[in-house]
């Protein structure tokens, strides 16, 4: 049973899902950061494998991935890190975000390793539905959930198909552009994610650009089931190279604040 199904069994679930690059800034510190985030109340995790040429990522996550690679991250070391997180949190839903080449070159065996490490679902940032037959087959045969992405310019019918074909949840990209923390939440984003609620009843999480606890709450208020915050945390790691505990404190404070909102469900409709 995919752990995301349990998380999203309640259609009103308001999940907070932090994103971290595995191995940033190094294996041990990365584990400490992830562990603390879960202790602070993260409902699930989105974990990225570092890729040296991440075309969907802005400067912050590019640097995060570069740090992880400089520290010696490989497919196997990242998988080991996931397995350790799983070991510590047996019930936690864990999804991975990868660039396709990292998985493609592992062939079927790579999917098996990830399933064995305790991964629940996988999203690929550069693999549209049209090219995903082999990938989906590998996921299915290993009991891994498939997460498709929906973009602001995805036509409505296509979005419906992507929601239907997603297992676990669907990843909704909040806006055009690469990953990176924005200083505000645009009206276009709110409109776009609100419109999607009418397209599907299946669970989806919204990510890209979200950098403030208030934005998280506003996105939840549109009816989204989950919100993903990544670059904002990566930049905390970036700005505290010699004091990871400061980054950890900031990340945990953010999560604690967000979780205090998640209890206060507004009366909608």
């Amino acid at each position, binding site marked *: 049973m995919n752990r995301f199904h349990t998380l999203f069994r309640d259609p009103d679930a308001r999940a907070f899902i932090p994103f971290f690059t595995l191995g940033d800034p190094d294996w041990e510190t990365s584990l400490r950061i992830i562990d603390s985030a879960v202790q602070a109340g993260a409902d699930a995790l989105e974990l990225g494998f570092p890729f*040296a*040429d991440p075309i969907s990522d802005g400067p912050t996550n*590019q640097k995060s991935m570069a740090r992880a690679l400089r520290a010696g991250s490989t497919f196997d070391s990242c998988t080991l890190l996931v397995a350790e997180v799983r070991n510590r949190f047996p019930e936690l839903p864990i999804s991975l975000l990868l660039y396709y080449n990292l998985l493609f070159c592992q062939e079927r065996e790579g999917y098996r390793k990830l399933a064995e490490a305790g991964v629940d679902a996988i999203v690929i940032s550069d693999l549209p539905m049209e090219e995903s037959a082999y990938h989906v087959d590998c996921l299915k045969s290993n009991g891994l959930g498939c997460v498709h992405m929906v*973009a602001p*310019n995805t036509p409505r019918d296509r979005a419906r198909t992507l929601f239907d074909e997603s297992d676990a949840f669907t990843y909704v990209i909040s806006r055009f552009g690469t990953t990176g923390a924005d200083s505000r939440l645009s009206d276009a984003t709110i409109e776009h994610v609100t419109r999607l609620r009418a397209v599907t009843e299946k669970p989806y999480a919204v990510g890209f650009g979200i950098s403030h606890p208030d934005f998280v709450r506003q996105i939840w208020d549109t009816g989204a089931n989950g919100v993903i915050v990544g670059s904002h945390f990566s930049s905390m790691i970036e700005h505290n190279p010699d004091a990871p505990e400061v980054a950890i404190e900031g990340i945990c404070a953010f999560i604690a604040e967000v979780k205090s909102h998640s209890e206060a469900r507004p009366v909608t409709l």
Partner: protein
Amino acid sequence: MTTASWERTFGELCYGGSYVPESLVHVLDEVQKAFLTAIDDPAFVSRLDKLHREFGGRETPTIRADNLSERWGTGLFLKREDLVHGGAHKLNSTIGQILLAEYMGKTRIISETGAGQHGVATAMTAAKFGLPTDVYMGVVDIERQHSNVRRMQLHGARVIPVSTGRGTLKDAINEAMRDWITNVGESYHCFGTAAGPFPYPSLVKHFQRVIGDEARRQMLEGHGALPTDVIACIGGGSNAIGTYTAFLDDPDVRLWAAEPAGTGLDGTNHAAALTRGSVGVFHGMKSLWLQNEDGQIAPTHSIAAGLDYPGVGPELVELMERGRLGVITVTDSEAVEAFEVLSQAEGIIPAFESAHALAATWKLAKEDRDRTMLMCLSGRGDKDLESYWKLSEGNDE
């Protein structure tokens, strides 16, 4: 104008395809539809033709290189794409693509460049169309192709330096794609080679096949026979597929790819993706990539900035794997020697890229004299003079 040959993937292993973030799916669909409409639209076709003649200076001649033919004891013919406006074949594609961008109502052009030739061709074409242009270029390439940076700027383009990775073509393409993902509505990505996500490999081929179409006719008219061998250098593969396409149905014409071996094929100081690459998915396509066992794209090197790229267009991979295309690797120093040879023997300074093709041609001539060889001289070498002089000063010391 022939209608497009239109394939999403090539061969049984399905090289090519369209491996892009979801936000680009709709955009690529739009490009494909507009392209198919445009090339059947007589108004588009006649404007393209006029631009080729009046702006591009087509057609370009195919000449017999008499001195080298005599020296090597073979027939050597050069398709003179160095004479295209701007100094390289790249303009064939930028004319077509920017005309298409205008046709689609796009108001801004994004591009990337390695040698600067595609950037220059984009900048000069966009200037003619009055479209603002941003060209991404690696810092290493900005350094070694500085005159082209200035040319782009003179045409009004903004050249944006890219310092990630090794600061070369791959990194510039990364940034151009990030820009495109961000500005999907108004921008057209004028892609520099016959690679990337569908429909670009087919679209760029369509606009570049004029090279081979002309050359084949010129060989028949001027020489009375087809060549036995056709040679082109490989960056992403646009001048190559543009040259080969007309000859694909001539089974007696052998096709050859000149790949950059840099300082040697061991290690990562080369960019020989056909020879040393493995199957991977990057920059929107499944193809052969220079990469490590973990799927991280490898750093590359070639003295020719336009060949300094870890991948190769998908159709060329398919042609190679089914034995239709032979591959010859050429080191930096062999290319520089060929650069000097052509300058001295024929009075033509080739681009470092094209010098790779000549070095490969030379190897074929040594192997077997009984050949009639047609080589695509993809560009002129003025842009490489600074690097060449620096290199020869270094050697004199």
